[in-house]
């Protein structure tokens, strides 16, 4: 779902694998304090710069939209985010399983792009 930079990226800060059980209802998602994201929209993908960490990522539309959702409506569970995505992108719900959204958010959290909060 979330595509990171290709092999020829050097020194890209990478996430550390800590499983936060991102699908659980007790976890909500926010943009971390001091976060600043810049986007460049191209025909074959969205390139994003995380100004806090200084890292660059290639996102597909779903991931970019998920970030927009978290930014505009902080504090939602991954279920609620999924519902928003299905609505905004007019996707068939079967195409976006619950686990996929949880995984994507966990990946984003591992990269420091979003923050998870246990309620």
């Amino acid at each position, binding site marked *: 779902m979330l595509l990171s930079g*290709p092999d*020829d990226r050097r020194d890209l800060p990478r996430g550390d694998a800590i499983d936060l059980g991102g699908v659980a209802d007790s976890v909500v998602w926010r943009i971390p304090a001091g976060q600043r994201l810049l986007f*460049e929209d191209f025909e*074959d993908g*969205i*390139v994003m*710069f995380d100004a806090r960490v200084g890292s*660059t990522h*290639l996102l597909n539309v779903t991931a970019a939209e998920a970030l927009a959702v978290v930014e505009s409506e902080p504090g939602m569970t991954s279920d609620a985010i999924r519902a928003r995505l299905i609505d905004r992108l007019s996707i068939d719900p079967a195409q976006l399983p619950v686990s996929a959204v949880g995984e994507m958010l966990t990946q984003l959290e591992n990269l420091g792009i979003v923050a998870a909060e246990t309620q």
Partner: protein
Amino acid sequence: MKVGALSASGVHAAMSSRGIAIAAPPIIVRLRSPLRFLADQIRALYGDYDVVDPEAFADVDVRMCVVGGVRRWRRPKVQFVVDGVAPFDPFPLENAMPMFEWGLNWAFSQRANQNLLLHASVVERDGRAILFPAWPGSGKSTLAGSLVCRGWRLLSDEFGIVPLGGASVIPFVRPIALKNESIAVMRAFAPDAYIGPIFPATRKGDVAHLRPTSLSTARSRESAPVHAVVFPNFQRDEPVSVQRLEPAKTFLKLAGNAFNYEVVGERGFSAVASIVRQSSSHIIHYGDLDGAHAALEEILRATPDK
């Protein structure tokens, strides 16, 4: 006054004392060294460059010092010293020239973060710059050198220097480093071009330097907007082919191949985006230089200015 206007012993005398200061825009480099053969090689490759006052400001101050060799059984080596530090292991004495060239590139890249530094060769024609990102097998220097021998202007064979805030490249005209087979290829392609001595078996193989044309040195302060980003792939006897490369992929390849993308941060992100939006991006496969040139002509013809 040009370096070439000094006598050979004049260059040597300068390097042996207060140093010879050479203007190689965007920098001034001051070089001190007791080595006579190095002085001769500098005079040959940098003959067209302006000499400036060695007591004036230099962006990079280099000493090529002889180390070891005090004991008869130890062969002397040469060391690249900048700001009182020798950042590399010493080279065999006779390889002072390639060491100077590589060392100067390194020193420049360390102190030029007001620019995005792409790892690429850059040439210009008709006010349009073509950028060849470096990667193994790209032959970026050979390709750039061959174009320069056919009248294109050289901006650089190593750095695409993009001052932050824009999408143009400024020149850093220097001798072009040719390696291994490219040396013979270039001699055959441009028999009248000046290529310096071959330095055998350096860490990067055999190396020789192609002197930049006077056209290039004369216009060494003129920037040019990036018109096309071309990823060259050399495969002997391969028929020529050209493909477009999509913008996001181009973005990641350029960012990944830059020397200092991470250091310049946000402004680097914007610079790469500007370049991608302003230019077209292509992959070319080629098996000989004339084929590559034809492909580039086609790219120029087919891509209007944006």
